[in-house]
């Protein structure tokens, strides 16, 4: 019989409890995930992919609801740097999210109602611990590699710091070892937009079939700006007007960029839960890997033998190259084998999700370079 643990759109309820950084115990722990490929008899070919803030577990399969291809088919798939023909690939929805893993929309077993804001505040390290529980369930002792971009990169970086003996290589793309004041500030704008929406109802909107769409939409609009470069926006929209010859002297979406952002916001609310947005942005804001290791980032990497690969993009102002360089210096200080390259792209932070042949070459060379 086929092993039900492996395949597309899997879901498991683990008894837990999972002790969280905030002190709470979470039980049970639900994890939605997918696997591609076959786990080698010696278990040596497992690669964990970590998704970003609003991502999901469908990294390289068609989304069961939208029918869209996976979000990282450029990196994961046949003849790609991560190839299910060779690698056993795992991607799990992060803790706190809304794609099937435990989050604020899950039912609190103590009340029979959704947790809403009674869900415990989680950290990036808690997400990683939940992933480790999943790997235990799947029989994966050690990862050949953990790979992630943006918030996925934060998880990837936390892996060898949290489980130094369970990961042999770590790929961190367009990411950072800590959220800066500016990062936190943008997230706070988003959270305030959600909480200022009267439909948010203190988080208890689940029974009303009328979620805080306006607030979540504004949150997404603000965040989306940080994912693009100014040059990219100028090239795409400039000051072009939206379906009109002249300015309307009103407050419709006169400019194409306004119309685009409104569309980004509106389409986002169909697929994402506002409370999850609050929890996950909080986890990212709390992220400071050095702080978890006595204030010195190098300490986070002293207990592991993992190899590291960092990639940044020159127009990414959300997690600029200097943040990757900061990580590289810490890796050097800890004596770890590190690879780092800043790639050129006009697309800002989003570049890691777009066509980037150089990124593929770098990740491919890095993963094959393991001895």
């Amino acid at each position: 019989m086929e092993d039900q643990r492996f395949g597309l759109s899997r879901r498991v309820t683990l008894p837990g409890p999972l002790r969280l950084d905030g002190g709470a115990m979470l039980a049970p722990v639900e994890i939605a995930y997918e696997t591609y490929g076959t786990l080698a008899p010696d278990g040596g070919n497992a690669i964990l992919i970590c998704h970003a803030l609003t991502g999901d577990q469908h990294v390289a399969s068609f989304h069961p609801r939208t029918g869209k291809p996976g979000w990282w088919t450029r990196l994961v798939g046949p003849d790609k740097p991560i190839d299910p023909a060779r690698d056993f690939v795992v991607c799990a929805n992060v803790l706190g999210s809304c794609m099937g893993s435990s989050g604020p929309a899950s039912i609190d077993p103590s009340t029979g109602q959704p947790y809403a804001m009674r869900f415990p505040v989680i950290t990036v390290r808690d997400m990683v611990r939940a992933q480790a529980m999943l790997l235990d369930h799947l029989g994966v002792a050690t990862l050949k590699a953990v790979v992630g971009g943006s918030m996925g990169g934060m998880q990837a970086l936390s892996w060898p710091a949290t489980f130094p003996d369970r990961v042999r290589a770590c790929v961190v793309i367009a990411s950072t070892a800590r959220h800066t004041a500016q990062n936190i500030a943008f997230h706070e704008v988003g959270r305030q937009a959600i909480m200022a929406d009267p439909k948010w109802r203190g988080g208890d909107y689940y029974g009303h079939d009328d979620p805080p769409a306006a607030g979540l939409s504004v949150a997404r609009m603000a965040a989306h700006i940080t994912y693009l470069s100014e040059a990219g926006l100028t090239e795409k929209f400039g000051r072009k007007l939206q379906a009109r010859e002249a300015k309307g002297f009103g407050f419709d979406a006169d400019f194409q960029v306004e119309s685009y952002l409104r569309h980004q916001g509106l389409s986002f609310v169909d697929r994402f839960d506002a409370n999850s947005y609050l929890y996950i942005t909080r986890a990212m804001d709390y992220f400071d890997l050095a702080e978890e290791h006595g204030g010195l980032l190098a300490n986070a990497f002293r207990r592991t033998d993992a190899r590291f690969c960092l990639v940044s993009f020159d127009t990414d102002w959300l997690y600029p190259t200097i943040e990757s360089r900061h990580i590289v210096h810490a890796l050097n200080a800890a004596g770890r084998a590190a690879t780092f390259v800043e790639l050129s792209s006009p697309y800002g932070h989003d570049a890691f999700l777009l066509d980037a042949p150089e990124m593929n070459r770098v990740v491919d060379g890095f993963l094959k370079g393991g001895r």
Partner: protein
Amino acid sequence: MILRPDLAIIADHVDPGARVLDVGCGDGALMAALRDTRGVDARGLEIDPANVARAVGRGLPVIQGDADLDLAGYPDASFDYAILSQTLQTCRAPDQVLDELLRIGRRAFVSFPNFAHWRVRLSLLWGGRMPVTRLLPEQWYDTPNIHHVTIDDFRAFLAGRAVRIEDAWFLSKGGARTSTGANLLAEHAVFLLKR
């Protein structure tokens, strides 16, 4: 694969299994040779992203960075050898880079084109023009070589800083040269240094 002559000399004199940092590693040719033929644990630093991508494509751990800025993070004596091949003359502060090299590596290999080679002298003396040679192919305005150095300059520099020369090799088109007359006859030089 055939290594550049100065790299071949370095490759022949690194102990098997050593830990090596190649500063200005280019496309990783030396690192790959050291890894494949001598089991060396080689790490690289390279300023040009295309070179970094090529080196990483060979499975080498290379960091995109600048010798002038990115050496401070490495702990003291964390490598058996630190290598600076044909990079010294491109540094903004070669003296500080050399200090870092000798701090990070127990030994350092340094190679550079000799600006006192007779062809260079001739070009200035007779042509009155900045020399454009086989090893210094760029024009004055686009050369990355901003701190030209001669073999005698380098020897004097080392003497003034109490750096010990453990070995030295002098090369020209025809092959190896002796130390005597190297400042006039050698196109480039390789030094093995220790503090």
